[in-house]
């Protein structure tokens, strides 16, 4: 019998062999392939139809689309919580079908849309410990991971609070931190900015930027087009369980794609609209927009 809580079938997390050290070198980041995946929920809702995507290691990908378009369903295929009824999901070219979720969780971290369906521990740091513990992390490294995850979302001051005494936005950040502490090479966030004020959004942006800088793959579902345009290099638009658009923000938010976006009940972000009017493309910098406006009406 193994020591309580340890899980012999989950491979040790990268770097855990060096007690107390924070792995500066990222574990291997897998490529993700979604091959013609279809999925229907048991009671018959067809949530995905023939979805194909290839996500390279280190990519930052935003998934957008109206409510019920299948975004959450799609990401739950990437860590094996849902198994496709048609097609395959591959990590590094290997079908994930035979792999247990507990195994996949070491490689693909997923923070759920609704924190209240994720949080369960009696206090904040226990909640954050849960994931790394399941990966076999103990002792100094565990403490370090908790501290860093708390700091990343600005919850250091409430480490001993009960999660349910925090407001919604902080519970949501806690759910994010609890996945962050697992240091998975792939990080998936389901609507991380929903319910956040400007400071919360900035924290989430910071988390995404840092994970991306470390070379991790970051996938986020969002309805916040500004967040999407600013933080992600690739945008996938889903409509009725299919991929409607897929490309860099400059293409997906370009004027030519607006009819398609609007058919998916999405509005291009304001900078994209301004950029198009000012001839600056779909992803102008704030500075460029201000400069163009200051240059006077000739440019408009």
């Amino acid at each position, binding site marked *: 019998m193994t020591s309580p809580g340890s*899980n012999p*079938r*989950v491979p040790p997390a990268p770097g855990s062999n060096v007690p107390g050290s924070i792995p500066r070198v990222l574990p291997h980041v897998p490529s993700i392939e979604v091959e013609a995946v279809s999925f229907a929920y048991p009671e018959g809702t067809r949530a995905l139809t023939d979805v194909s995507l290839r996500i390279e290691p280190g990519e930052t990908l935003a998934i957008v689309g109206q409510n019920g378009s299948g975004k959450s369903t799609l990401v*739950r295929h990437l*860590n094996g*919580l849902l198994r496709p009824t048609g097609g395959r999901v591959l990590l590094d070219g290997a079908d994930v079908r035979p792999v*247990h*979720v*507990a195994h996949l*969780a*070491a490689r693909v*971290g*997923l923070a*759920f849309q*609704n924190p*209240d*369906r*994720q*949080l*369960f*521990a009696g206090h904040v740091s226990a909640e954050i410990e*849960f*994931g790394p513990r*399941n*990966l076999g992390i103990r002792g100094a490294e565990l403490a370090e991971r908790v501290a860093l995850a708390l700091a990343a979302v600005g919850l250091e001051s409430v480490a001993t609070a009960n999660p*349910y005494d925090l407001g919604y936005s902080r519970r949501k950040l806690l759910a994010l931190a*609890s*996945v962050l502490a*697992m240091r998975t090479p792939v990080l998936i966030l389901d609507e991380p900015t929903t319910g956040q004020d400007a400071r919360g959004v900035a924290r989430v942006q910071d988390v995404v930027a840092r994970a991306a800088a470390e070379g991790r793959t970051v996938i986020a579902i969002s309805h916040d087009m500004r967040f999407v345009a600013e933080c992600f290099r690739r945008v996938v638009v889903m409509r009725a369980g299919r991929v409607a658009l897929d490309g860099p923000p400059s293409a997906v938010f370009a004027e030519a794609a607006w009819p398609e976006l609007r058919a998916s009940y999405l509005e291009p972000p304001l900078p994209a609209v301004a950029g198009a009017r000012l001839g600056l493309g779909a992803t102008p910098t704030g500075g460029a927009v201000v400069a163009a406006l200051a240059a006077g009406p000739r440019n408009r």
Partner: protein
Amino acid sequence: MSMTRLPDYVVRRPSGFYRSTNPGTKLVVAALEVLAAFLLPGWIGPAVVLAAVLATAAVARRLRGLATFGLAASPIVGSILLVNLFLLPGASDPIARLGPLAPTWSGLWFGLQTVARLLAFSSAIALVYLTTTVDDLLADLSRRGLGRRAIFVVGAAVQMVPLTIERAGEILDAQRARGMDTEGRIWRRARGVLPLAGPVVFGALTEVEERTMALEARAFSAPGRKTLLRVPRNGRIDRFLLWAALLALVALVGIRVAGRLG
């Protein structure tokens, strides 16, 4: 009734045997069955009730739903059996001796009977769930003049069951996404699942509380008569069944009380 002129998507009546029976009638029938399961002596109670529920479910084509329900009840059924089999106080007719353990015949019979009673009364209630939509039940109760608070309590309680199941499933998924092993040994799984009971119940309660406030915000308890969009069927058969069940219920209780006194 003027209601029959409403478009189909508003009135969408349930169809099929027992499913279209009046919800209030079904409630009284279920109440009768629950009482019968406990008040009729020995094996008669559970046997009669189980037979009645199964027959009704079969004709209403709800046997599968009932089977799922039975499966969900199997852990508690198993533990009742085991506890009685080994630990029935005063039982002294051992079936065999297994080291320190001595399962007894009387324990086995008593356990089986308890389980049969439990299944009989709970499947009677489950059958109401399986054949009735919440809207119909609430509309019928309100038409019968039940107060709004009472209707809300019934509605919230009834809706909490599927909501709680759904919530529990997602909470479990969220922990699996964080590496909780749900595919390993039973004891390990159980240990992982137990701490989740808290948020499941807590969340369900919060949801009900929020719904109460949302209802209040929409003037739920404002005085005056409510307009009902759906009016469940209440034909001659429904009324006959209702009164028959009520009579049987009163008779059953009466006989038991008389038996005690006599």
